[in-house]
């Protein structure tokens, strides 16, 4: 069954703060016959260091890409930041000879060379392109009946579009289709593709909280009962920081935030107890599980 085999790139934010995403994604992989090969010797994708050293960010990404090339596997990752940076740099290194020679100069010191024969995919892309929507639908045993949700795609899967996108950056559809495969209705709302601001929270915490609050307002106004995310950093903004936003702005949202694989797993009949829902700050269990 397993012709879907990938090197699993975990990244940093998931093991640090968001285990529920990994737990639920692994359940879905088991269910769909996606084989995840654990990745030893990995390092950060490089994105966090891009603002201070593009060279180091590129070298870190390139080292991960070399590990995948050595194993002759494609990389799958759950994080938009990792997917975005690895995809972007993989493309640049493949197409830009001058850059490739420069980076290979750095890699020589650690006995590696970028050759350009691997690819990087986000989990959502694996589901939509490799596994296919029809196969995803096949595992749905208990479709949601009256559940209305909204999606937050996040930035680095869509932009810069000429380097990373596999969906329309101004009007993305792939995640919506995957959500509707669970029976839930996916609503449109204002500024759907707008950034949550997570990347600058270490420099300025006010602006990301305002951005996230505005999105929560738009999602609520659309009538969504939950928000579906596919990036651990976005999850931190919408779920982990939601109580902080409620305190700061003196308003209640109480909007459950689910990782897409959690939503799919519930519809696939996997027990809510197996999905680490209790890790979330905003209570999910009563509100969403009941719709199954």
């Amino acid at each position, binding site marked *: 069954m397993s012709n879907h085999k990938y090197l699993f790139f975990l990244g940093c934010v998931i093991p640090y703060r968001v285990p529920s995403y990994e737990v639920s994604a692994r359940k879905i992989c088991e269910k769909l016959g996606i084989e995840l090969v*654990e990745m030893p010797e990995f390092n950060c994708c490089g994105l966090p260091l891009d603002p*201070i050293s593009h060279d180091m960010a590129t070298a870190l990404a390139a080292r991960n890409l070399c590990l995948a090339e050595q194993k002759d596997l494609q990389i799958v990752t759950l994080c938009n930041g990792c997917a975005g940076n690895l995809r972007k740099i993989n493309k640049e290194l493949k197409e830009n000879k001058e850059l490739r020679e420069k980076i290979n100069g750095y*890699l020589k010191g650690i006995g590696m060379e970028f050759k350009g024969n691997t690819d990087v995919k986000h989990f959502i892309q694996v589901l939509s392109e490799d596994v296919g929507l029809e196969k995803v639908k096949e595992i749905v045993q208990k479709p949601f009946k009256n559940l209305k949700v909204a999606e937050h795609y996040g930035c680095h899967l869509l932009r810069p579009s000429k380097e990373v996108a596999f969906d329309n950056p101004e009007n993305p559809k792939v995640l919506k289709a995957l959500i509707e495969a669970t029976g839930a209705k996916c609503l449109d709302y204002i500024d759907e593709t707008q950034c949550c601001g997570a990347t600058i929270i270490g420099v300025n915490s006010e602006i990301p909280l305002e951005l996230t609050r505005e999105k929560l307002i738009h999602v609520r106004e659309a009538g969504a009962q939950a928000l579906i995310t596919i990036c651990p950093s976005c999850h931190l903004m919408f779920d982990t920081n939601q109580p902080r936003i409620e305190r700061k702005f003196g308003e209640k949202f109480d909007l459950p935030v689910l990782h897409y694989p959690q939503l799919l797993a519930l519809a696939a009949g996997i027990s809510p107890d197996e999905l680490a829902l209790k890790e979330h700050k905003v209570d999910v269990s009563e509100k969403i599980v009941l719709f199954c």
Partner: protein
Amino acid sequence: MEASAEIAKPIRLDPRFRREIMAISGGETLKICFQCGTCTSSCPIARFSRSYRPRQIIQMTQLGMKSKVLSSDTLWLCAACFTCTDRCPQGVEVASVLRVLRNLAVKEGFVPAVYRELASNILGTGYAYRITALQIRNREEFGLPPLPKANIEDIAKLAQSTDLSKLIETRGTSSV
């Protein structure tokens, strides 16, 4: 409030600054910006910041306001969402130009504390964050496999050859 007369101070311009940025990979498109403002009007951060305006940073860079641009806190507010780059009608790689400016600011000694911390975590552990013993135990309770071990020696060598080590070591701990 007392009205105070503002005395205009001369601004130091560096006519070579523009060329310096355009010579660095990612900075090439600085020249073709015609100041339409699509970047700022598309920017999620600009909507909530009183000071961050990507169009303005590009303009100041074109004019050669080197020290003002590189020492500015607002340079660090770009969230790298790339909406500006995607929507620019001229094809200016706005986010990349800003990244080139930030990288240069670091060489001049302006490094926000958070980036020092991220770099130190990555050099020390391979991860951008310090993963605690509790978080590792949590993984076991969830039945997750052990955390991959990073190769710190390789990372240290890359930091040496890309000059990252030098950039964050030599400048004390002061921050923007």
